[in-house]
């Protein structure tokens, strides 16, 4: 497996969970929301940029990490699918019960 495949697939999974975490954090914290709004003019823009930057930066770092290279495709797939389910259903559940 290419180091980039492993690194960026894992990074995507982490970014997806970070997306959920950042959403819950900013919705529960008015100061954080205001700070994010202040950075770019709207909290959603800041949020999106943060997730994308985390994905690319973490992908670059993980691509050069030895342990990540040793992951199998099955492990990567399981983590990827799991993160999408947790991230997506977590967001829906948060706003449903919020």
């Amino acid at each position, binding site marked *: 497996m290419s180091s980039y495949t492993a690194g*960026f697939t894992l990074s*995507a999974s982490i970014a997806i969970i970070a997306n959920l975490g950042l959403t819950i954090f900013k919705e529960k914290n008015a100061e954080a929301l205001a700070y994010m709004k202040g950075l770019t003019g709207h909290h*959603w823009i800041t*949020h999106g940029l943060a997730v994308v930057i985390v*994905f690319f930066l973490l992908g670059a770092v993980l691509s050069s990490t030895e342990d990540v290279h040793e992951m199998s495709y*099955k492990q990567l797939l399981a983590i990827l699918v799991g993160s*999408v389910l947790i991230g*997506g259903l977590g967001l829906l559940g948060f706003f449903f019960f*919020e």
Partner: protein
Amino acid sequence: MKDLFLLAHPVFGVLGIFASLWVIVELLNISPHNVRRLRLASLLSPFFMVITWITSGIWYVRYYAADKAVILKGPWPFAHRIIMETKEHVFFITLVLSFVIPIVAYNENLSKNKSARMLTYTLCLLVILSAMALEAGGSLIAMGVKLGLFQSLAQ
């Protein structure tokens, strides 16, 4: 002009879905002869998703507030409180997944590596399914605006 942004973002979202579907079709028929076309298709998905991000962002940041007010006063306030709030954050899942497709396509020998093909299939399917869920969410939001306007006309 503002309606162009509203209309453009689901169109480019669907084009992103089609690009991911194109990758799947090329994968199903993978050989050394179509790798170049598959890699082109893999670039188109994130390209269209980024345009979706920009056009939806312009609409959401500059023009959505009026629609939001109508939805919240109407019979379907959940169209904003649950659907829109979820949609605007789930989109980043779709976006990030679409970025990984070309990374795998350009760094793996997909014609010889079955596991890499499975990973690519999975990425494309996740993009397609999540993007279709976003399209459905957009329909519900539009209905929320419509019902809110009907209600205000009836009063």
